[in-house]
């Protein structure tokens, strides 16, 4: 009986360790790849090389990596800030000042969350062209700051926000917007953190919509650059690896710093 239990434990650990290694290995490989030559990367060299500096130099001289990074940072930062402000305000309006008319609008918005992006893409593209927003970063930002999911996510957490605090502030004579900005916002920090992470990931990793909107090289984001680098006739794998690490690093850092909020943000959609 005892040996059978030990055998079972061994199987469980072997399974978990394999899953762990498979999950983590590509990260190791990508960091190793960053330090190796193109030939070595593709052959699957698993040890660190000496090419890191060369790869970095090639990445920043053959491509406008600095400008492209700044583009990504600009788009993501503005999208996150805009999303948090606009979407949390809307959620607050729907929950704190609920009325039958607004409830109908809210339900309609929720329903549209199920519509896949592919169905919106074509009219959205024509709209962007019409407004003269083609090839402009604002075209990406403006179309994503009113996020249905983030509105929903905020509203779920506002439900547990003590209404008495708002009423007390009103009695003290505080205006509605002041209550929102100075009382509500600071006390919902963890919800804002989770929403920020979700929104940052979406914006930083976006591919299809930027591919359509951004048409010239100097406007491109990191994701677009990596994609076009890998489809070149003679891809420089070491340099691509360096770009992938640079593109992945910010998210990994955010993940390990805010792990608690991160998972909360991901699960937000189903927590009632």
């Amino acid at each position: 009986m005892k040996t059978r239990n030990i055998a079972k434990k061994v199987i469980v650990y072997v399974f978990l360790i394999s899953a762990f290694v498979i999950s983590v290995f590509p990260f190791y490989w990508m960091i190793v790849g960053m330090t190796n030559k193109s030939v070595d990367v593709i052959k699957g060299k698993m040890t660190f090389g000496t090419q890191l500096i060369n790869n970095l130099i090639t990445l920043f001289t053959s491509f406008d990596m600095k400008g492209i990074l700044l583009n990504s940072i600009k788009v993501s930062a503005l999208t996150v800030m805009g999303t948090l402000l606009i979407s949390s305000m809307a959620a607050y309006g729907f929950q704190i000042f609920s009325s039958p008319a607004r409830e109908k609008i809210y339900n309609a918005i929720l329903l549209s969350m199920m519509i896949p992006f592919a169905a919106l893409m074509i009219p959205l593209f024509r709209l962007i062209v019409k407004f003269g927003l083609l090839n402009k970063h604002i075209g990406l930002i403006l179309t994503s700051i009113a996020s249905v999911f983030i509105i929903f996510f905020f509203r779920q957490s506002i439900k547990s926000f003590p209404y008495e605090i708002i009423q007390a502030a009103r009695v003290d004579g505080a205006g509605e917007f002041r209550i929102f900005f100075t009382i509500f916002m600071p006390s919902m920090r963890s919800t804002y953190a989770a929403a920020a992470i979700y929104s940052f990931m979406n914006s930083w990793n976006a591919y299809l919509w930027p591919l359509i909107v951004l048409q010239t090289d100097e406007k491109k984001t990191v994701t677009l650059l990596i994609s076009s680098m890998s489809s070149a006739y003679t891809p420089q794998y070491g340099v691509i690896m360096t770009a992938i690490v640079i593109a992945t690093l910010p998210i990994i850092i955010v993940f390990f710093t805010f792990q608690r909020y991160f998972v909360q943000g991901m699960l937000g959609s189903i927590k009632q």
Partner: protein
Amino acid sequence: MTGATTGRSFVKSNNLYGWLFISIAVILLAAFLLYPIVYSLYLSTTSSKGIVQNFVGIKNYVRLVKDPMFLLALKNTFTLFIIQVPIMLFLALILASLLNDKTIKFRGLFRTGIFLPAVTSLVAYTILFKMMFALDGFINTALMNLHIIKEPIPWLLDPVWAKITIMIALTWRWTGYNMVFYLSALQNIPDEIYEASEIDGASKVQQFFHITIPILKPLIVFTSIMSTIGTLQLFDEPMNLAQAGVTSATTGPGNSLLTLSVYIYNLCFKYMPDFGYAATVSYVIVFIVAILTMIQFKVAGDKS
């Protein structure tokens, strides 16, 4: 002024504030969500070659049935989710129930490691996989060194292997993500249930099928629908696994990775633009998603 009137004016101003708070978001959503949804439906009844746009009624929908490319994209998409989604969710369930066992050491480390793929960008991990699964790439080299295979496997050069490669990639990216969902639900199941069944002589495998799966049923339905919708919208992975990315003549060998979203993109931006027909294809996705969502509500409704 009496109390009643101040009350009413307060409600009135409250109403105004309600509109003010939601106004910006509602205007943006009307422009960038509602309008596109409606306009897309209208577009699907027109045919546009260049700048001329004609009303064609349901002609586009008839064209779908006879369009070999559309049928291929539909078939590819269905093949992917019928095989990949169950394997991935089953793996996620097993991992979650193993990691829910408090006697397992390093649970936090395992959980973090297995979840880690979910933080990567879709494009970045796809390109990583494209390099790993190249003909002379890491996977083939490793398998040949271990004497598991004699000839390199044409991962991305053969239609069937290309589908297997994308399934492996998708499973790597999303298993940990789904596992975290299951894990958080499992942590709410009281230990007493498992302890009681253990006293009754139930094995771990019996517990898994008779306690864990039934309790998680609503969540399993939810994650399957979400994964299916995700597969229906698959774009970044097939596009970047293709030989020359966006500029490739075919998406994967013999268009084996052509998905509905890629086909829509091609109809708009690669071939002679036909926005009308592209909108029709996109509404096929809408209809499938709508049906799936209804099924989900029905199953979830049964539970409560």
